[in-house]
């Protein structure tokens, strides 16, 4: 089964970059534009991996992560932070909520691929 990746970010541009980064891989990409929509999308889509921004309206990334970890159906989903906020306090909060990785923006698409390969079964399209 090809993995499903959910990106939760308030920037359309980030959604497009993620989609483009993975277009040559056998996977499904879904996206949500803020934290609250992200939790809904995670419940609906049951992704294998979530990329999560911090600076977002409605719920920020840390609040979103708390919701995800507190919702039994999706609590165990691997989450990788994809954010420009990487100070000690943010790092500590994300680590305490068991993130699988932390990519600091600005980022190169290759960083997304490398980390994703270490977390889900990502194969090039046949």
């Amino acid at each position, binding site marked *: 089964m090809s993995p499903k990746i959910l990106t939760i970010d*308030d*920037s*359309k*541009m*980030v959604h*497009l*970059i993620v989609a*483009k980064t993975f277009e040559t891989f056998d996977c499904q990409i879904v996206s949500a534009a803020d934290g609250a929509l992200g939790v809904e999308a995670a419940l609906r889509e049951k992704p294998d991996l979530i990329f999560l921004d*911090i*600076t*977002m*309206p409605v719920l920020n990334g840390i609040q979103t992560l708390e919701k995800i970890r507190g919702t039994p159906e999706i609590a165990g989903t691997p989450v990788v932070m994809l*954010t*420009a*906020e*990487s*100070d*000690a*306090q*943010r*790092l*500590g909060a994300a*680590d305490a909520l068991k993130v699988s*990785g*932390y990519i*600091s*923006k*600005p*980022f*190169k698409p290759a960083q997304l691929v490398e980390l994703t390969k270490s977390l889900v079964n990502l194969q090039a399209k046949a």
Partner: protein
Amino acid sequence: MNPTDKLIQKFQLAPLPGNVQRLGKLIQGGFAQNADEIAALIKADAALSAQVIAVAQRKRNVEMEVEQAVMRLGVTAITLVVMSELLMNAVTKTFSTMLNAPLEKREELFEHVEEILGSIRFSGRASGQVFLRVPATCGAWMIGRFLGEESVPEDPTEMLGDVVGELLNIVAGNFKSNLCDAGLNCDLSVPSIVRRMGFKPEVGEDQHHQLMAFLTDGLPVFLDLVITPVSA
């Protein structure tokens, strides 16, 4: 190793600029008592030294050493210089990594054109606003840089607001992270975007403003930083 350094290693992130953290602590600890140490730290960083001397000389055009420049400028201006240096690093890194577009610093101003203006607010121990401006006509160039020429949509201007918002989010997010790690805890708003002509930020009597102008691939990029001084 302290817990934060451990996390930085665990997630393979770039280590924090140590001098910035130290400078933040010294500035908060009292400028007068720590002026010598502040000067020594600035002196150890060539770019920062050049910037501090340049700003001090703008006020009084004589040759001077870092120590004199630090004393002449005082806490507010030194904070502003350090902050704008951090912001400059953040914007340069963001453009070169995300857009593969190196920014060249420019002193001169450019003629006014219609611009996409993004603004973001930070508030807490450090407060102020960061503005990022690009010409409204540069949508195709910018989106092409992000996604490749073949992915530029028919109306790139429509997406330019989102692009400027995210670039500003990244620049200000890096800046905010540095401020927090220097002991100046603050929160960041989400970016807001408008399209307008002839922007000049509102600067309160106790606030400071610094304009930074860049050129990349013939395209002007402006960054404005407005800060409220840190009280000791």
